[in-house]
Each structure stands twice: as structure tokens, then as C-alpha cells.
């Protein structure tokens, strides 16, 4: 995909990833009454005040901008949960913690638009930043291990943004290793 200005075109742009992330479901508490919306992607139930419903993130953003709802932060975005994840990330050297696939994008969207709906927002924000940094560092150390014997690489529980950043570099590196490796096998 990607913006056509990128000749290599092997990655999504960050804005595109954000767009894809907006399909995730999130819980909102509307403050108005509305009929159910029958959209192509699904039916989103009649909205009653103070009764929470699940809607896709883009719809939540739109309603929030018009002041028609408040957003309830997803379960993984609580301070205790994030602290646990951070501890676990720091402890395990090789493996990554399972996290929602689009956690970076979702968190950024919520910070931008739903600032007042998240308790302890500064804490949450700094925790997510730390988690992100630790994971990136782990990716870096993991990549150092690649040698000519590596035919494929498996990184568990990597999220969308991380995959997108690493993808072009990793693919090229593996290709080059493969290219340098082949003649040997044939000749010797």
C-alpha cells in the first residue's frame, strides 16, 4: 500500500495504520438518545443516555467531537495493568508481552481526543511511552543476532506500528544476507 510517493512502497504510512486502527471496537457512554445506526460495517445499537455500547473507534471519535458521548478507556489502558506489562517487558529479555495489536495508534487517538476521559492520563502516557521504548530496544537487540544462517525471523506479539517500522529494514537485511550466502552453498 502506502503513499505512492514512496518508491519502495513496502510499508504503510503511519496515518494509514492509524486509519486501520480505527476499526477496533471501544466502549462509549452516550449522553443523548439516538436511533440505531445501520451502517455497512454493522448495526450499532440504539443509543440511550448513560448506557454504554460498543462502537468502532472512528464512530466514537466522531461522536466525541460533537460532544455526544464520553469514552471509556479500554481495559488494557489502566495504570496497574500497564505497570504490570512494563515490569514484564523489562524482565524478559527475549520475548514480548501480548498487547493489543494497535495499542500505539489507539492510545494516541484517545490522548488527542478524549483527554478528559482517561484517569491519570499523564501516568498512562508515560507508561505507554516506556513500554514502547523497551520493546523497540528489544527488537534492536534481537535483530543483531541475524547472521547468514537465518532464513526466517519470528518475533512474537509484535504490534502493528513496530512491525511497520521494522519491515523495510529487516526485509532488505535478510535479502542481502541471502544474496551473499547463496554462491557459497553452490560452490563449496
Amino acid at each position, binding site marked *: 500500500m502506502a503513499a505512492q510517493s514512496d518508491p519502495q512502497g513496502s510499508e504503510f504510512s*503511519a496515518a494509514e495504520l*492509524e486509519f486501520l486502527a480505527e476499526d477496533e471496537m471501544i466502549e462509549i457512554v452516550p449522553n443523548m438518545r439516538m436511533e440505531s445506526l445501520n451502517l455497512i460495517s454493522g448495526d450499532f445499537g440504539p443509543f440511550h443516555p448513560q448506557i454504554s455500547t460498543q462502537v468502532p473507534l472512528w464512530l466514537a471519535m466522531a461522536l466525541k467531537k460533537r460532544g455526544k458521548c464520553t469514552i471509556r478507556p479500554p481495559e488494557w489502558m489502566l495504570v496497574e495493568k500497564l505497570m504490570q506489562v512494563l515490569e514484564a517487558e523489562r524482565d524478559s529479555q527475549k520475548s514480548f508481552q501480548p498487547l493489543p495489536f494497535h495499542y500505539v495508534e489507539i492510545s494516541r487517538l484517545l490522548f488527542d481526543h478524549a483527554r478528559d476521559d482517561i484517569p491519570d492520563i499523564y501516568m498512562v502516557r508515560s507508561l505507554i511511552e516506556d513500554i514502547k521504548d523497551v520493546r523497540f530496544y528489544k527488537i534492536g537487540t534481537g535483530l543483531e543476532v541475524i547472521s547468514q544462517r537465518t532464513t526466517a525471523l519470528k518475533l512474537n506479539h509484535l504490534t502493528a506500528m513496530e512491525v511497520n517500522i521494522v519491515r523495510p529494514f529487516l526485509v532488505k*537485511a535478510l535479502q*542481502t544476507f541471502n544474496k*551473499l550466502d547463496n554462491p557459497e552453498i553452490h560452490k563449496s
Partner: protein
Amino acid sequence: MSQYYDIDDILAEDELVPAVFQVAANGVGLFDSSDETNKVTYEDETIEVEQGSKVELPFWLARELHLRQALSINLPPCFNQKTRDELVADAAHVDLKNRCPYFYELGCKLFSLVGDKTIALLLLAAFQTRYKEVLIKAQTAAMTVAPKFLTLLTKEETKLYEAAQSSMVAFKKWRMGGPRFQRASVLGRKRRPSD
């Protein structure tokens, strides 16, 4: 084999390699790099190359003549002992761009033509060490350190570095925020209708 339309491949094959003619060649146009006017015409002034003379030819020419068994190819100077020693000592800081910006590509192509089996191992070892450096430098993305290091990298390594760099930079820029929609500069200011 080679990518016919790939610019880097074409440029890589343009590197000079020393070769020794096995037969006396007649009418081979030798582009002497120091003298622009030395192009050969067939009517008069055909350059005769004697057997056993050493010349430096671009790789594409050398390979074709090699297939016709007209010459034998030696290793270009960038693969000589001096470079090898430097690579063994500290691969990460060897200035490959100066010697031969298509180090790896050329090495792969030369492998089948020159009777030297150690090229592949040399390339591999060199790349492994340098790759680690590229990785580290790309991730830290310090603008002061980068330029000095970049001048040492061959074409392929530079592409690798830029791939890592650009995606990181794009992500950081996105994270900074900024308007999601930007007004196109073409739209400009509104002008009143002129009536």
C-alpha cells in the same frame, strides 16, 4: 541473474576490473579513461591489443570477453590483501565507499569468474560486522554522528540504513501530532470574482 533494468546493477557493472588478454584482439574499442578522444573507429587506427597485456575494463565488457575466452579477469584492487587485512582488523570502519561503492554486488558477480573462493567468505564476514553497526546507528538516529559514518557505507548498506531511518523518522513525525488534513497549497487564498 542481474536485474536488467536496475540502475544499481548497471552502475555496479560499470566498475573497472583488471584483466589480462589471452589472445591478440583486433578492433576492440578500448575506452581509455584518461583520453576522451581515443575511441576506436574501424576504418583506420584500429587498436591492436597484444596477448598478455593488462588492461582495466568495465566489468560488463570484461565478462563478455571472458565468456568468449578472450581474457582472464583478476581481482580488482578493492579486494586486495590490504583491504582484507583492514576488514579483519575492524570491518565496521573500513571506507568501502571510496574503494568500491558496489563492494558486495561486484564481489558476487566476480565470484563465478575469478578463481578465488575466498571472496564469498570475506564478503560475508565483512557484511555481518558492518550490518550490526548499521543497525545500531540507524536506531539511535543522531544527526551529528550519522554523516561521518554514512560515507563509509557501500550503496547497498546505504539503502539499508535509509530504509530503517525513514520509517523511524516518519513514525516520530506522526507521533508529534499535527493536523490530520492539510490544506493543499494550490487552493491558496480565495479571490473575489472579478465582476
